[in-house]
């Protein structure tokens, strides 16, 4: 998980703004429960992504509760696209080692 958390957070925010708990729930749902994030790990990550300009946050009020919702910036969308490309190249490289395509038989 370490090293991929940023990509996961950016990916679940692609459809629109979410608050912290909804982000965690979305990661768990999309992974079919296979990825169980320690909830507390995402707050520093969200803060960092906002600090470097990949997310921006707004405070939304619902009754007495104030919730911070995060949304992708344009830079965040570009970074997500790069993360996807890098991940596809990585899995393709690993896949070609684990499941090598047998060389075509030469005609005799």
């Amino acid at each position, binding site marked *: 998980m370490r090293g991929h958390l940023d990509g996961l957070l950016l990916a679940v925010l692609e459809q629109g703004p979410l608050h912290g708990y909804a982000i965690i729930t979305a990661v768990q749902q999309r992974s079919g429960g296979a990825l169980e994030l320690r909830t*507390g790990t995402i707050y520093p990550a969200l803060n960092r992504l906002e600090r470097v300009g990949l997310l921006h946050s707004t405070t939304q009020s619902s009754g007495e509760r104030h919730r911070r919702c995060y949304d992708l910036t344009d830079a965040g969308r570009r970074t997500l696209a790069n993360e996807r490309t890098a991940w596809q190249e990585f899995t393709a490289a690993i896949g070609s080692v684990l499941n090598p395509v047998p060389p075509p038989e030469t005609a005799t």
Partner: protein
Amino acid sequence: MSDPVEDYLSSLAAALHGPKRTKARMVAEARGDLTDAVSERTRAGLSYEHAAEQAVRGFGTAAELIGSWQRELTIAQARHTARAVARTVPFVIVCWTLLQRADDSFWHLPRAAQHLAVVSAVAAVLAAVTLAATGTLARWFPTPDRLPLTIAWAGTAASMSMAIATLALALSAALGTDWVLLTFACVLAAASHALVAGSARSCRRCARLITDL
């Protein structure tokens, strides 16, 4: 009976150090989301105590989280100190320039003023580097581990320069002719010192905490 969520958040908050606003925001956000997690479990039929214990377990132990939380808070504190230095150093350089012009040759202030103004200017450059390296540039380059400690000591040096400026300006105001302007500059230097010294002290503490992790 104590609330497991509040007990947990209190122990987490007590272990963390950083800018008050950033820390309060992160803890408040965690509180809101833990409240949601507890509500979801109580709706599923669990008692509040069991729901709260499960939610806290899922959140992660303080020992598991403190590293990443403190690292982010330390960078936030480094940025806070860098901003304080960047905002105040130009005023202090103006103060030193005023001192250079004051006719206090027996204090040998002009040369000392030049040296201390250079210290302030170097601190201002380091502050700009810190803000850039922990901001947009951090998308592409990892933030150097020693950067928070570097800006903490740069801030400390700048604040000492500001303290000396305050004393020198106070003496010059008392002995010189242009006392109104020098007194105003003295108050400005004292306020700058108070702002930067406190932030630099907090930054040194935060930097030490991540070194110990």
